[in-house]
C-alpha cells in the first residue's frame, strides 16, 4: 500500500483531529484559525509534491492523477481563504464553537478532496456524504431560526438527492457488474448494456450531482441555505462544493460513460439543455433579488450554467476550460463573499439597499466587490472574461453554436443585476459615513482574490497551462 499517495488526505484528517483536540486543551482559542490555516500548508505541499508521480491508491479506489491534484489544490486554497477571512465573524457569532467550526470545515474539505480523487462509486458516495454531513452541521451553526431552518432544508433535500444518486449507482452497477468507473467504461464499451434501465441510472446519477452543483431544477435549496447559513459557510459552499461536484461529474461522465457513442451523445445534449435552463432561470431569478446573499446564490446558479457549457462540449478543451473557469469563479465569488462578510460584520444587514454609497464608506471593499462582480459578469480585463471565453470556445469547437448564443445572451442579462449592485455602491448616497473596519485575515484573502482575478484576466496562460496539463480524463 502506497501510503504517501494519500498523504494529503491523511494529513488533512490529522489536522482536523488536531484542531478538535487543541480545542479541548488550549485556553487561547484564537490560535485555532491560525493552526487550521497554516496547517493546510502540509497537505497542500504534499499534494503538489505528487504532481509528477501519479498512480492509484486504496485498491484502485482513488486516483492520484493531475486532474485530482488540480482540484485538491483548488479546494485547499479555497478552504484557506475561507478560514483566513472568517475568524472575526466566528469570534463574534459563535465564540464557544470555534473548534468545531474549523474542524468541520476541514473535514468537509477532506470529503471534497476525496471526491475529486475517487474513481469508484461507493468511495464517491462515502466522500460525498462526508463532506455533506459536515456542511449540514455548518449551515445550522448560527442556531437562530433562519439558520436552523436552512440546515434542516439542506439535510432533507440533500438526503433526497443522495437517495436519487444511490439508486442511479445501483442501476448502473446492476447493468455493468462493477462499481469501478474504468470497469463500467469497459463494460459499456462494446455496445454492452444498451438498455433503457441503464439510461435511468445515468439520469439519476446526473440528477444527484446536479443537486450538489445546484443546477436547475435542483437548485431550490441554494438561496434559502445561502441566506440562512453563516456567511463564511455560504462562501465555502458556493465555491468548494461546486468545484468538487464538477470534478466528480467530469470523472464519472468521462471515464465511465465517455466511451460508447450512443451514451455520450445523450449526456452531452442533456447537460447542454440543463446548462441553458440553469443559466436562464438563475439569471432571471437573480434580477429579482434584494438581498445580496440571495443574489449571489442565484448568480452562482447562473454561473453553474456557464460551466455546464464546458461539460456539454465534452472535449479536452471543455475539461480544462471547466477547471480554469472553476478557479476564476472561485476567486471572484470568494472575493465577493469576503467583502460581503466584512460589510455585514459592520452594518449587520445583507440588503442591497443598505450598500448604498458603500464606495464612500469603504472604498477598498467596494472596489474589490466591484472588480469581483465585473469578473462574474465576464468583462475584461478580469479573469471571468477569459473563463467564459475558454468554455464557450470549447462548445464552439463541437459546433454547439446554440449553446454559446444562449451563454452570451445570458451574460448580458447577468450584467443587469451585477451592475445594479455596483450602481448602488458607487453612485448611491451613503446612509452614514462610518468606515468599515477589516482585519488582516480578510485583507489578505481579498488581496489574493483580487490579484488572482486581475492576473488571470491579463495573463491567463499562467493557469490555463496547468489546467491543460491536468485535463487528463479520457472519454
Amino acid at each position: 500500500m502506497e501510503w504517501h499517495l494519500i498523504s494529503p488526505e491523511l494529513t488533512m484528517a490529522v489536522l482536523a483531529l488536531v484542531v478538535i483536540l487543541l480545542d479541548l486543551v488550549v485556553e487561547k482559542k484564537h490560535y485555532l484559525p491560525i493552526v487550521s490555516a497554516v496547517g493546510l500548508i502540509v497537505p497542500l505541499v504534499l499534494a503538489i509534491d505528487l504532481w509528477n508521480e501519479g498512480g492509484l491508491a486504496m485498491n484502485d479506489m482513488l486516483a492520484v492523477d493531475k486532474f485530482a491534484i488540480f482540484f485538491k489544490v483548488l479546494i485547499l486554497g479555497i478552504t484557506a481563504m475561507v478560514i483566513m477571512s472568517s475568524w472575526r465573524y466566528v469570534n463574534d457569532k459563535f465564540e464557544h464553537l470555534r473548534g468545531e467550526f474549523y474542524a468541520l470545515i476541514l473535514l468537509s474539505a477532506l470529503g471534497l478532496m476525496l471526491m475529486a480523487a475517487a474513481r469508484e462509486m461507493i468511495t464517491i458516495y462515502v466522500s460525498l456524504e462526508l463532506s455533506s454531513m459536515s456542511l449540514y452541521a455548518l449551515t445550522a451553526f448560527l442556531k437562530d431560526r433562519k439558520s436552523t431552518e436552512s440546515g434542516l432544508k439542506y439535510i432533507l433535500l440533500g438526503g433526497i438527492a443522495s437517495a436519487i444518486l444511490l439508486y442511479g449507482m445501483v442501476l448502473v452497477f446492476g447493468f455493468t457488474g462493477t462499481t469501478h468507473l474504468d470497469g463500467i467504461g469497459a463494460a459499456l464499451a462494446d455496445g454492452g448494456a444498451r438498455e433503457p434501465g441503464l439510461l435511468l441510472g445515468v439520469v439519476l446519477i446526473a440528477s444527484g450531482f446536479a443537486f450538489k452543483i445546484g443546477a436547475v431544477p435542483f437548485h431550490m435549496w441554494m438561496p434559502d441555505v445561502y441566506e440562512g447559513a453563516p456567511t463564511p459557510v455560504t462562501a465555502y459552499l458556493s465555491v468548494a462544493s461546486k468545484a468538487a461536484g464538477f470534478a466528480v461529474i467530469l470523472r464519472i461522465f468521462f471515464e465511465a460513460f465517455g466511451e460508447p457513442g450512443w451514451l455520450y451523445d445523450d449526456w452531452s445534449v442533456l447537460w447542454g439543455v440543463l446548462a441553458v435552463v440553469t443559466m436562464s432561470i438563475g439569471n432571471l431569478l437573480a434580477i429579482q433579488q434584494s438581498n445580496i446573499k440571495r443574489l449571489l446564490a442565484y448568480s452562482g446558479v447562473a454561473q453553474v450554467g456557464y460551466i455546464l457549457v464546458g461539460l456539454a462540449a465534452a472535449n479536452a478543451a471543455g475539461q480544462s476550460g471547466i477547471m480554469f473557469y472553476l478557479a476564476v469563479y472561485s476567486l471572484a465569488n470568494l472575493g465577493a463573499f469576503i467583502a460581503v462578510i466584512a460589510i455585514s460584520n459592520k452594518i449587520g444587514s445583507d440588503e442591497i439597499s443598505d450598500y448604498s454609497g458603500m464606495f464612500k464608506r469603504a472604498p477598498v471593499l467596494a472596489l474589490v466587490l466591484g472588480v469581483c462582480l465585473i469578473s462574474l459578469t465576464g468583462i475584461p480585463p478580469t479573469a471571468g472574461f477569459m473563463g467564459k471565453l475558454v468554455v464557450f470556445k470549447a462548445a464552439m469547437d463541437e459546433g454547439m453554436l446554440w449553446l454559446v448564443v444562449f451563454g452570451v445572451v445570458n451574460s448580458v442579462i447577468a450584467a443587469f443585476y451585477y451592475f445594479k449592485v455596483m450602481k448602488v455602491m458607487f453612485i448611491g448616497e451613503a446612509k452614514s459615513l462610518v468606515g468599515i473596519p477589516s482585519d488582516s485575515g480578510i485583507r489578505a484573502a481579498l488581496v489574493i482574490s483580487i490579484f488572482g482575478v486581475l492576473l488571470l484576466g491579463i495573463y491567463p496562460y499562467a493557469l490555463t497551462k496547468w489546467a491543460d496539463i491536468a485535463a487528463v480524463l479520457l472519454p
Partner: protein
Amino acid sequence: MIPDYAVWLIIFLPVLAFLINGLIMRPLAKEKNAKYSGYITILSIAGSLGLALWAVYSVADEGAKEFSHVISTHWLGVGDNLNIEISILLDKLSATMALVVGVCSLMIQIYGQGYMKGDTGYMRYYTWMPLFTAAMLGVALSGNLIFTFVCWELVGLSSYLLIGFWYHKPSAAAAAKKAFVVTRFADLGFVMALVGIYFGMNGTELVQKEGINVFDIANLPDIAHQAITMGLISTTGFTWILLGIFAGAAGKSGQFPLHVWLPDAMEGPTPVSALIHSSTMVCAGVYLVARLFPMFAMHEYGETAALVVAGLGGFTAIFSASMGMVMYDIKRVLAYSTLSQLGYMMLGLGAVAYGAAHTSDHHEAEHLMELAFAIGMFHLFTHAFFKSMLFLASGSLQHSTGTFDIRLMGGVRKYMPWTFWIFIIGSLSLSGIWPLAGFWSKDGILLESWAHTPWFFWLAMITVFMTAFYMFRAIFMTFFGEWRGGDPSGLHHGDEHDDHGHQEVHPHESPFVMVAPMVVLCVLAIGSGWAFLGPIDANAFLGGHSHAFFSVFTEFSLDEAKHSLPLIGLIVALFGVFVAYAIYGAQWVSNEAIGRAFKPIRTLWYRKYYMDELYEDVIIRGVLMKGIFWLCAAFDTYVVDGIVNGTAGLASEVGGLFRKVQTGQLQEYGIAMGFGVVVMLAAVLIGFYG
C-alpha cells in the same frame, strides 16, 4: 548573445516605472519628492536603452543580415486550437527601432527635467511617458501581429493622454480627442486586416500542420504566399489586407488624408511632440510597413498595395511641405515637415516594394528586399534624431521667449547660441545637405523612387526644395534680424523670468539639462548618416548600402543620370536655402509682395487646404451628425431601447413567475427535483427509442 529575459526587460523596465510612478508615487508622494518620479523614469529608460544596445550588438554579432530570433510565450492557450501568443522578434529591423526609441526617449526625458520643472502635472507627465515608451518598444519588438496591435493601441492611448496633458486648455483637449479619433478610425483598417489574415490564412498547411501561429510576423509572408497559392485567398483579398494594414499605418504616420491630427497634436508639451510626433509614434506606421515589407514586395501580389503606399507617401510629402511653407508657428512648421518626411519614408518603402514586386528577376528582387531596410528605415533612423532635436530646440525657444510664433521672435541668435547652432545643424540635416545625416538617407529614397516609380520622384524632388525653403524661412525669421519681443504671457511657470509685473521678455539660453540632450542628438544628427558608428559594421547592418552611398557621392559621374541625383538633390536644396535667404534673410524680395502675388494659393495653404473644415463642418456635422448619427439615434431610441426595455420587463415578469415557485416550502422543492428527474428521463428515453 543577449538572453531572452533581457529582451523582455527592454519592454518591461518602462512598464515598471509606469507602475511605480502611477500606483505609488502619484497617490502617495509629496510634492517636494515629485522629482524622484522623473529619476525613476529616466533610470528605467536608460536601462532599456542599455539592453537595446546589447540587443543591437548581439544582432550584429550573429551576422545581422540573416539573423532573426523569436522569443515567444503563450498568452492564452486552452486545448489545441486556441493559442494566442505574445512573442518578440529580434532582428536588425526591430533592434534598430528599439535603439531609436530608446535614444530619443532617454534624451527627451532628460530634457523634460528642465522643461517640465515646476509643472503641476510633473508626476503625471513622468507616469505617461514610460507607458508610451514601453508601448512603443513593444511595437518595435513584437513578433506577433496581435501583440503589435495591443501595443499599437497603447501607443494611441498614451499619446492621447500626453497630447491632452494640459487638459484644462480646450484646444489641447480637442487636439487629443482628434488624434485619438482619427487614429482609431484608421485602426479600423488594421483590425479588418487582422480579421482577414485569420480567416484567409488560418487554413494554410504552415498553420494547420506545422503549428505556426497565423499572426507570427516572421512567418507571415510565407503563410500569405501559401494561402494565395492554395487558393484560400484571392489576390484582391490579399491586396485589401495589405491596404487595411496600410490604413492603420497611415493613421499613425499621418499620411494624407489622415494627417489632420498631427499639426493639432502640437498642443501637447514640446518634449511630447519631440518624442511622439517626430521620432516614435508617427514612425510606427512606417515601421509597420517596413516590418511587413516582404508582403508588400511579394511578387505580383503586393504590387498594387505597394504602389498605393508609394503614391500616397509621395503625395503626402509635397502636400504637407506646401502647408509648412506658410505657417508662423515654428512647431507647426516642424509638424508639417514631419508629415512630409514620413511621406518620404513611405515613398521609399513603397517604391522599393513596387520594384521588388514588379521585377521578375529573382536576384534583383532579393537585392531590393535588402534595400528596403536601408531605404525606409535609414531615413526613419536619421530623421528621428534630427527631428526630435529640432522639436527640442523649438521647445527651448519657447521656454525662453514664451511663444512659438516666429513673427514675435527674431535675432534670437545672439541670446541663445547653442539653440541657434543646433537648429541650424538640424535644418541642414533635414534639408539634405552634405555631409549631414539627412543627405544620405534622403538621397537613398530619391534614388530608389527614380529607379522604380519615376512619376513620384518628381514630387519628392520638388519637396526637397520646399523643405529647405520652409526650414530656412523659419531660421531667418527666428534667429536673424531684430528682437521682436516674444510673448511675456506665455512664459513657463516656475521660470526665473516669471515675474508678472514685467511685460518684457529677455531671451536667454536654456539650462544645461535641456541643452545637453540636444547636443547628444545633434552629434547623432551629424554622424548617424555616415554609418552606425562604433563596433557595429555598418556594412553588414545596412546590407552594404551605407558604403554604397558614400561611393555614390565620391564617384558620381554625370554620365549616369542615376549617380548625379545626389548632386542634383543637393543643388535643389541649396537653391531652397537661397530663396529663403533672399526673401527672409536679405529681404531682396518683400515677403508681403510675394504674399500678395500668390494670395489665393497662400490662403489655401495657410488654411490647410480647408481639410479641417471639410472634415468637421461637412463630413462630421453634415453627413454624420445630421444623417447617419441621427438615424442611429432614432434606431437606438425606438428600436433598441424598445427591445431592451421590453426584454427587461419580460425578464422581470418571467423572473417573478419563477419566484412564485420559490415558496420556501420543502415539499415543493422536492417536487421540483422529482419533476426534473422525470423530464430528463423522458427526454433521454425519447432519444433512445426515437
